[in-house]
């Protein structure tokens, strides 16, 4: 009898496994920026889209599960940064000399999603193998996301605009 029970449990677990995997398809792994004291830490989390809200659940404790209702979202902004690997390149240059020179030209792409909501906001670092599907899935739920492009270029443009406006103000004063 025990053998039959064990056999049944085994069969059930085998049947349930693909169902579990199928449910995982709408779950996306991300890194969430969380403020702890003066520092900002990136914590592993999973984001899932429910019928009317976004659920952000931490992979490790302590991490409060965050819910952001679709109607609450004021704006969502996608940006990416594309920076050379200076740290790796410098370490490589110290270890391997000139042979590590190509690493200075190699870039790492990081994808970011900022969700601004009425009460809750979130800054997420997205993974390269799922961020495109996540953005499409969010948009299909009616969330308007804007692609702001390269974060560094955006910051440069904002800085230049600010400097220009300050210059104009100074000139007007003179």
């Amino acid at each position: 009898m025990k053998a039959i029970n064990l056999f049944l449990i085994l069969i059930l677990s085998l049947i349930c496994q693909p169902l579990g995997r199928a449910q995982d398809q709408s779950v996306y792994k991300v890194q969430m920026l969380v403020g702890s004291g003066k520092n900002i830490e990136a914590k592993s989390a999973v984001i899932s889209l429910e019928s009317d809200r976004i659920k952000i659940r931490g992979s490790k404790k302590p991490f409060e599960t965050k819910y952001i209702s679709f109607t609450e979202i004021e704006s969502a902004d996608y940006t990416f940064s594309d920076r050379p690997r200076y740290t790796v390149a410098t370490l490589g240059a110290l270890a391997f000399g000139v042979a590590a020179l190509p690493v200075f030209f190699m870039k790492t792409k990081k994808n970011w999603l900022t969700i601004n909501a009425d009460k809750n906001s979130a800054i997420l670092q997205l993974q390269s193998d799922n961020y495109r599907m996540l953005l499409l899935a969010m948009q299909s739920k009616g969330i308007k996301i804007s692609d702001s492009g390269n974060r560094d270029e955006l910051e440069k443009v904002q800085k230049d605009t600010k400097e220009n406006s300050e210059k104009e103000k100074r000139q007007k004063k003179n």
Partner: protein
Amino acid sequence: MKIFTSLLFVFLFVTSNWSQNQKDLTTAGARAQKSVEIIRQFAALGTGSLPFEYLQKAKAVAVFPGLTRVNILLNELTLGNGIVAVRSADDKWSVPVFLALKAQDINLKMAGKKSFDAVVLFMDDESIEWMKKGDVGFTSNGKRKIALGPVIGGKGADDLMKTAKVIYYAFDQGKLIDTGLSTDSFFKAVGILHDNNMNKAVFGMKTKPLFAAPESSLKIPAEIEKYRTVLIEVLPRTSSGQNADQMDYNKQPIK
């Protein structure tokens, strides 16, 4: 005896060529079939999605199923074969033609292997001319850029589409991924070449004359014709030639 030996050699030569040709035809059919599946996966992203909008606007659609990426000692090589159809001014699709893709880059990985599918969209006539000439090299310098197609609208997508005449979408098991054919890296080079061997086996001529050949002079195998059929099916146009993006589509949810 000499005559018998000569006849045997001729027989062996003919049968080996015939079997090679049969093998190429089977490979071509399988490649077209896989490409059809990938176009359907693309359509499943939803007719209201930005990738689908670009698919509608593309002047030529190439699919490279099962591109293989190999990393060996900091070198990254991507190799594979595909199929392309070009849309004419009168809204018809050309005979599907076989292409090859080769890409080279450097990567910190010492060893590794990955497989993915790519849909390459040629967005204007100039980019189609590059492809028709063959041996088209895409690099980070100059105007010959190939970029990862945007998924959502905004400033970033607009800026990218101003500079890239050729965009691509990469798929892994039907899901959009961010994997590199983009020529944004200093060492990256991507070549879209003619697959002359396959075109010779299927149509009896090399790629360049094939692009110029009238359709009536070609015998298109049914399995290869399916690629063109799926493009007509997925990207319908009205009889008046109205662009598909002006049509009223029912937005489909993402699966």
